[in-house]
């Protein structure tokens, strides 16, 4: 049996023609036919390396652009700078520990990457979650969704060259994060959901801060959106940019706002209801254009709907315990469970297999960011360098979830 070896530089069939490489550019080693085609430059074409230290790549993404003048001809995303092997980590930690390991996956909205595995573990264990805990999950989740969309708005404007919106939206995001920190104890990686409930009931600081913020949130969020929604330069740049049509979106497994902006009203909160969403009243905003502007405006509509949901949660919040009674050491029956939640970026789902021990046999995590990053390769060619980051930002991937 032969051990697999790295392809060697001496193999002439795999090296890039030397005359195309610059003086200090290492000659990349083509491992696939696609790479060989990509790195073979025609007349007037040039490779431009964006990231991982470029000021506007989101997280540590590296994109090699093949450009002709200012126009992007082709691109090659290079992933893996944030890879931790979290699925393998999950196989070696017990069910309680996994929650904190999964937090950094989607560090912008980390409650959602706790929610889906917690739900699948509850299915494995046949646990009934108290209603108050479900309401608290929805309440904090929607707060986190607003925080995530605010971050999107700021970064999107920043990628189009506007420096003020990010600081306005961070004023809101900071307040939300402070509110969440009042019950979770953390500002970024909350580690708040537990199997069978949540960690800690609503407290006085949370309620007073939330009430204070809710009383002015609507007007403030509208003011922040007013910086961009009516801005001629912004609208002209975003309209018609990176159009994702309905069929492509479905074929490429887009979910969440990116799918709904292309005209498919698919939202897991309504399509496959979970938690207490059936009891709540809200709309699924949908747009047909499928361009960057639609994706931006749709997220802003979702923020308005989330405010409605928070309002209803506060009014309908029942009394009762926030944790189901469970043994400390969890040993679910052997079996499989799947659960999906609608995160701010799309479907966040989790498939857990238990073999009867206190650790899952396998935990498959589906992150929408990874699928949305694939769309970049479809939407980008033909656009200008200036729009590279604008298109990428409008799809809103988070590199923690992409690299896992």
């Amino acid at each position, binding site marked *: 049996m032969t051990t697999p070896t790295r392809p060697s530089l001496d193999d002439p069939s795999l090296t890039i023609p030397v005359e195309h490489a610059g003086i200090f550019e290492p000659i990349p080693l083509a491992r696939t036919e696609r790479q060989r085609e990509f790195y073979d430059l025609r007349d007037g074409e040039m490779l*431009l390396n964006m990231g991982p230290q470029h*000021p506007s790549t989101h997280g540590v993404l590296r994109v090699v652009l093949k450009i002709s003048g*200012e126009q992007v001809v082709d691109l090659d995303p290079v992933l893996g700078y944030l890879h931790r092997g979290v699925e393998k980590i999950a196989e070696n930690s017990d069910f309680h520990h996994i929650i904190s390991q999964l937090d950094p996956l989607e560090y912008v909205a980390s409650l959602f990457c706790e929610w889906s595995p917690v739900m699948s573990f509850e299915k494995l264990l046949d646990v009934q979650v108290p209603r108050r805990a479900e309401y608290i999950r929805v309440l904090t989740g929607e707060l986190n969704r607003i925080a995530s969309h605010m971050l999107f708005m700021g970064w999107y404007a920043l990628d189009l060259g506007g420096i003020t919106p990010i600081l306005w939206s961070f004023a809101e995001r900071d307040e939300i994060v402070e509110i969440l920190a009042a019950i979770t104890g953390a500002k970024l990686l909350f580690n708040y959901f537990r199997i069978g409930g949540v960690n800690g009931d609503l407290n006085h600081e949370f309620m007073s801060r939330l009430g204070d913020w809710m009383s002015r949130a609507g007007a403030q969020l509208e003011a922040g959106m007013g910086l961009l929604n009516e801005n001629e330069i912004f609208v002209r740049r975003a309209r018609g940019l990176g159009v994702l049509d309905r069929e492509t979106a479905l074929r490429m497994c887009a979910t969440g706002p990116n799918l709904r902006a292309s005209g498919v009203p698919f939202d897991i909160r309504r399509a496959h209801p979970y938690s207490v969403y059936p009891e709540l009243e809200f709309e699924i905003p949908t747009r047909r254009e499928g361009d960057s502007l639609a994706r931006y405006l749709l997220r802003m509509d979702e923020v308005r709907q989330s405010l409605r949901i928070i309002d209803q949660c506060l009014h309908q919040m029942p009394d009762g315990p926030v944790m189901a009674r469970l043994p400390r050491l969890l040993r679910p029956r052997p079996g499989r469970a799947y659960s999906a939640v609608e995160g701010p970026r799309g479907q966040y789902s989790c498939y857990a297999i238990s073999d009867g021990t206190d650790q899952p046999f396998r935990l498959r995590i589906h992150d929408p960011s990874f699928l949305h990053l694939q769309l970049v390769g479809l939407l980008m060619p033909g656009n200008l360098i200036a729009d590279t980051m604008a298109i990428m930002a409008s799809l809103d991937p988070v590199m923690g979830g992409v690299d896992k």
Partner: protein
Amino acid sequence: MTAYWNRLSVGSRAFLIIVPALLVVGAILTVAVALLLPPVLDFLGANLPLARFVAAAAAIIVVTIPVAFVIIYMELKVIAAMNLRVGPDRVGPYGSLMSVVHGLKVLAKEDFTPRGVDVPIFTLAPIVVFASIPLTMLVIPFAPGVFGQDFNIGLLYFFAIGGMSVVGLMMAGWASFNKYSLLGALRAAAQAISYELPLTLSVVGIIILAGTMSLNSIVQLQAGSFLDWNIWKQPLGFIIFFIAATAEANRTPLDMTEADQELVAGFATEYSGMRFGFFFFAEYVNVFVVSALSAVLFFGGWNAPFNWPFPVTLSLDPGGMGLGLIFLIALAPVVGTIILGLPFWLLSSRVSTLRALVIGFVLFNLLIVGAFMGWAFVSAAWVSGLVWMMLKTFVFVFIFVQMRGTLPRVRVDQLMSFAWKWLLPAALLNIFVTAIAVSILANR
């Protein structure tokens, strides 16, 4: 002798060496100046315009640095206020020395030359950029009599020298051996070609109206109240000029060349230390120059926005006061200090006597300075002219800064199509309309 020397302290030894050395050098310099001054003065007297040019150029290079500091501080503070931030508040009162510290920082940083750059061009580029922009200040009249040079082709000189900075940007981008720099430089060239045309054409209307390209004459023709300013005669010209000037100064909605979200820092990516500082300063001096030119061409330059309702004449005759003058000079500081410090001493128990006196002294000095400046403002035309000119200029600087905090960046193809499809035809239309109007009015 040696024993005496050994008993001396270090300072005394230094004193004993430096003082004779200074005396000797001073004597030599005195003799040299006495010998050389008459011919030099003769030469300067014979070439007065040249002397004025050299002196003004030197003065302007010196003046640009504080101007850039003020604008950088303004940008830091104004954008901070728009961003819901505090901005710099550590160095100096309200952080006012922050930009000075920035300047010192770029001086102290390592001046790094990357591998593979074209060293002579890489070194020259910041100098070309920095030298060209203050030189355009040479023709701007800041006040009656306060200007470097009054060319009869002043406006043409301004655009010619201002366009030179693009050459520097091209040099920087080409020599940097960096693809981002190269793209930034190419954008700079494309932008300069596109926007120099509407910029130059937008002021042709004013040249037709004024019949001269001398900026001094253009300002003098706008004398009177604010109704006599060119903005009322050339509104379209002003709009075109302002947009094109934004592109020329590389300011935010049109700052293609250093779009940091796209091209890292554009042409300046590979620069560090004071070489980067030159680009940095040049950008802000450019903002100042463009704002000053807007004020000169369209907003009356150093003319006050209104005619004084009454002639202000201050006639003081110190001789008529006799001995009273001596008493005034001797007693005014003491009495003024006490009178101005008294309210603080009386009204707040926390203010000690000494502190009240210090406050009174500072207030008295401010009062005197204010009185002197007010006297200068009403009696010296160049002081009031300078004040009005700076006021107008900094209003435009403020607008430039505010635009940076407000607007996203235009895409590069939109930038080009806007210049060629809208600005250029509008500028041509402006020229035609102005020319027809002037010829009709002249024939009547």
